[in-house]
């Protein structure tokens, strides 16, 4: 059986133009159903299973097994906790269940640094599934989710269009969409938006992202590595081409996921909103990888601030907000992976948010003395953009190669 699965062809999500052809062909009956006001849940489950299977068969079959084990494990935890929460609400149990639901991800993230190779527990998308699972546990703790069946939970965390790279949806939002079939007008609007996003995604990922990632970036990379000078013009080339590649590749991917969700009658949240237009770093995080940044905001930042304020851990409000920003961003850095460049990336964004907050306070106090016009706005956008690009250069890991592995 394993040999047979390992010999099958593998289709990574949104990898090739043919993939879209098959995917859209497969969801067409769903679309027809939605057009006539019906949601074919069984058919959806079947094609979701097939497409997820095709992502994790062939050479990725081990990941497929990890995925199955992982989903069973998380479902048991969530089922146990919702059952427990009906009668009791102990903090200890909540923290234990949260820790257990993060545990597989922690092991997977720590393995490369600790034992030098990837953990067998890992599979593509484990982070995104973990965000959904932990979010569900937290909302159950808050009494916002009262009832959840294994089937509904699995349908939510394994929602096929978003399984490997998000956007990260929330259980209550997803379930509300799922329970109600959109009216014909609403559905047609979703489809037309979806088609637009799909083509925008093609442009982003397969055209612009391709040129930055496969053409421009390797060109600057080669020249910079040959020069051994960290302050060369070519290094700037590496920085900008990588930054644009990252945006267009990831935003394109997210657009596909949102478009396919829309065709399936589910309004998955948008992940990017013109991030390079941001006037400050706070605004940037409201526009960049939105579903991740809001996840951290709601489940880490806000909860930490809430608890710290209630228990009076801090005398000074600004000290509290600075600590919360640092905690939030450094944790996000660790989540990306245990390497110096991911952690530094998070750390720098934490510092930037602290400085940004300080500046906003200063600005408010001296509102009358400070000029505010098109030029200052332009400067703000310029500074934010270049800071972000610099942190992406760190994030890319290129400097690790440049300084430590440049032979």
């Amino acid at each position: 059986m394993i040999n047979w699965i390992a010999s099958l062809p593998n289709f990574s999500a949104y990898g090739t133009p043919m993939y879209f052809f098959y995917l859209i062909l497969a969801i067409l009956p769903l679309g027809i159903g939605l057009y006539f006001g019906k949601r074919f849940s069984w058919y959806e489950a079947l094609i979701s299973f097939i497409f997820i299977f095709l992502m994790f068969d062939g050479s990725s079959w081990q990941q497929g097994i990890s995925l199955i084990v992982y989903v069973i494990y998380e479902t048991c935890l969530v089922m146990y906790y919702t059952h427990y929460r009906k009668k009791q609400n102990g903090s200890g149990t909540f923290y234990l269940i949260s820790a257990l639901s993060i545990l597989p991800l922690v092991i997977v993230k720590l393995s490369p640094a600790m034992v030098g190779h990837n953990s067998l527990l890992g599979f593509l998308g484990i982070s995104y599934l973990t965000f959904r699972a932990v979010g569900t546990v937290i909302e159950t703790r808050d009494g916002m989710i009262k009832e959840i069946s294994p089937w509904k939970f699995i349908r939510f965390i394994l929602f096929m269009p978003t399984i490997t790279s998000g956007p990260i949806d929330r259980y209550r939002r997803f379930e509300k969409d799922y329970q109600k079939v959109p009216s014909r007008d609403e559905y047609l609007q979703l489809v037309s938006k979806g088609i637009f996003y799909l083509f925008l995604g093609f442009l982003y990922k397969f055209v612009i992202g391709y040129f930055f990632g496969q053409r421009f970036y390797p060109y600057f990379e080669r020249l910079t590595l040959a020069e051994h000078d960290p302050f060369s013009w070519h290094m700037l080339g590496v920085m900008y081409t990588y930054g644009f590649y990252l945006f267009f590749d990831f935003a394109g991917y997210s657009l596909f996921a949102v478009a396919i969700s829309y065709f399936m009658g589910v309004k998955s949240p948008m992940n990017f909103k013109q991030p390079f237009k941001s006037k400050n770093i706070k605004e940037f995080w409201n526009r960049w990888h939105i579903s991740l940044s809001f996840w951290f905001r709601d489940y880490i930042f806000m909860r930490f601030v809430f608890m710290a304020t209630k228990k009076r851990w801090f005398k000074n409000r600004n000290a509290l907000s600075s600590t919360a920003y640092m905690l939030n961003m450094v944790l996000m850095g660790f989540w990306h992976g245990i390497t110096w460049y991911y952690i530094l990336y998070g750390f720098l964004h934490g510092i930037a948010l602290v400085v940004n907050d300080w500046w906003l306070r200063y600005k408010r106090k001296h509102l009358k003395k400070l000029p505010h016009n098109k030029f200052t706005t332009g400067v703000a956008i310029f500074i934010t953009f270049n800071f972000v690009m610099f942190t992406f250069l760190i994030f890319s890991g290129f400097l690790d190669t440049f300084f430590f592995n440049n032979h």
Partner: protein
Amino acid sequence: MQEQIINILADTTGRDAADFSDASQDLFTSGLLDSMATVSLLLGLQDEFGVQVPVSEFDRSQWNTIEKIEQRVKELQNA
């Protein structure tokens, strides 16, 4: 009730009550509220009106104006 809410908002943001004179303006897009101030607002509402608002219940689109905050608090008081 609006007046009490405005007082809490002025307290938590360190601004003048006059900044909150428009009960229908979006507090988030106008930059008056951010995540930090939101938490203080929730705690302030808890002290003032005795309503418990879990952080995960806080959907910005449901709480972004003074009018909406008032409406939510009333709903929670009657729940």
